[in-house]
């Protein structure tokens, strides 16, 4: 099991709209990601990296092709079944942080556990552990408005980690942060991948991509090339 890639994309296409207005965002993406890898996805705007991330995050389904996640073919699952996959195996970090406003950091982190039906006590403990991992336990009772951008993103990472996910998907996690904060976040993600979590991140910046073990370049709806990052060691099949 551990040898099999956790994520396999075969001939994934995605078309938005129909008829003359149809736009093919993905034109047959093949990608395989090993368990525990730290992958940076790069590419210009409109190259299909966000669409790919949405499919990988089980938020969207491909128009054609096969997406196997942990050996399960996701493209044939229902909306609710994909929700179940997300709540069990996936963690999300967004560019805009996407924390619930007027809700404390602790409660934001607890949220995914609520949908798992954990007890209040279990939720609290797990959320505190998770906040501790990102170094924000002292800020547990602060609302997003009372936190800096870097802190908010770390709360978002804590929220993604609280469920012990197999895969962490980060869509331009440093897009709204200055360089110093960005480096902190990337170091945090890098550290997480060391613990066995598969981390996928989309980024525009070479500097940030350098933290990854594998860098995948997208262009015009296809994977252009894959290369080993600064921390090589993962097998990638273009």
């Amino acid at each position, binding site marked *: 099991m551990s040898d099999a890639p956790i994520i396999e994309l075969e001939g994934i296409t995605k078309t938005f709209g129909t008829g003359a207005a149809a736009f093919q965002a993905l034109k047959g993406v093949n990608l395989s990601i090993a368990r525990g890898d730290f992958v940076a996805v790069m590419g210009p705007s409109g190259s299909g990296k966000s669409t790919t991330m*949405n499919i990988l*995050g089980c*938020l*969207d389904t491909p128009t054609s092709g096969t997406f196997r996640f942990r050996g399960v073919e996701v493209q044939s699952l229902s*909306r*609710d079944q994909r*929700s*179940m*996959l*997300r*709540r*069990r195996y*996936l963690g*999300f970090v*967004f560019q805009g942080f*996407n*924390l*619930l406003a*007027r809700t404390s950091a602790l409660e934001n982190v607890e*949220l*995914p556990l*609520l*949908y*798992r*039906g*954990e*007890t*209040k006590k279990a939720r609290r403990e797990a959320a505190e552990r998770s906040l501790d991992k990102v170094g924000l336990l002292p800020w547990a009772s602060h609302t997003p408005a009372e936190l800096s951008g870097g802190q908010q993103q770390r709360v978002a990472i804590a*929220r993604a980690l609280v469920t012990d996910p197999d895969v962490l998907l980060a869509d331009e996690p440093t897009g709204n942060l200055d360089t110093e904060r960005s480096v902190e976040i990337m170091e945090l993600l890098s550290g997480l991948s060391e613990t066995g979590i598969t981390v996928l991140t989309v980024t525009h910046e070479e500097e940030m991509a350098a933290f990854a073990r594998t860098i995948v370049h997208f262009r015009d709806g296809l994977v252009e090339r894959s290369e080993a990052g600064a921390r090589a060691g993962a097998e990638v099949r273009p």
Partner: protein
Amino acid sequence: MRLRMFGATLLLAFREIRRHLLRSFLTTLGIIIGVAAVITMVTLGRGLTADVQEDIAGLGSNVFIVFPESVEGRAPPPFEDDDIRAVERQIPGVVSAAGTAQAGATAFHNGQDWRTSVQGADPAFFAAQSIDVEEGRSFNAQEVESGEAVCILGTKVVDEIFVEGEVLGEQMRIGNVSCQVIGTVGERSSGGGGGGQDANDVVFMPLKTVQRRFTGSGNVQFFVVKYDDSYTNSSIQQQLIDLLRERRVIQEGEANDFNIVDTADINETVNNVTGTMTAVVTVIAAISLLVGGIGIMNIMLVSVTERTREIGIRLAIGALAKEVRMQFLTEAVVLCCFGGLLGILLALGLSMSLANAIDLPFLFDPVVNIVSFVFSAIMGVIFGYYPAHRASKLDPIDALRHE
């Protein structure tokens, strides 16, 4: 696990409502008003019915009250003592019949005076009208027969002229008749004496005494007929009409110059009036509730739009469509329940103060309160479903992108 989820959802709903307190309150106003209107009306209606029934009980049950009535402006002949005796003797089922005569008079005692009315009565009249002599005694046969100067006082008269000291056995003056107080009657609800005056503001004396010393004739102004409840009231009433037409020599085709009031009829009339009023208010309330419900739907749709991003986050981290739907549905139901609760409280205050203002008893009706509350909750489900459904159908990607 479901329960835990529900508890958290409920908590979230409370928090959202608290966050928009004014908006929530204004939204639920339609429901508050609708619920309050129905409950207030039903409560007052119950009070009114109970009040009338008590008055009717004061008139006595299985009782007809017979008044002379003018026909085409001609004054009707008064009833005579013989008419009453005939009713009593000739109609099977009649237990007793007793006439009365009334006159205005001033009561004097020990320097106090009070304008009141003096009413002729005998024990049969008391029995028919359910008048109880509380202290002292009723008139005896001797006093009734010879029309002696004895009197029984209503509570109002006692209060007005007996400032202190013994009442029973006292000598007092009514108009220019000196009489001895032999009893007092218990407190009665208004309406028992007829004419809308205070039923307790009365001095009873034997009918003959009143006729001789006050009205100056042997006429009775109206009489009461008490009948056995094993007879139907329509058969007794028909025989009463036939007998009185015969005795008062009314030709066929001419109208009755008397009127028979049936206490059961009064009851029915009041019930009809109350029923109609309740129906009218219920229709108005239904419209108010409908408008209120649409308001709830509207604000829930606004809320869904405002919180599109939040919905996106929830969906992304793995909330199921039905969980999102449940969250918004719960919020709508909680909102409506608050409306219902406030409506109940408003109704409580309104019906208490209105009952007090128009002198009706306040009778809390748990059924209408519970039904109204449950109905409010159902409103939440009905009008909250569509917005909640819409929230649950949002695409997580679009929702996350929403500004």
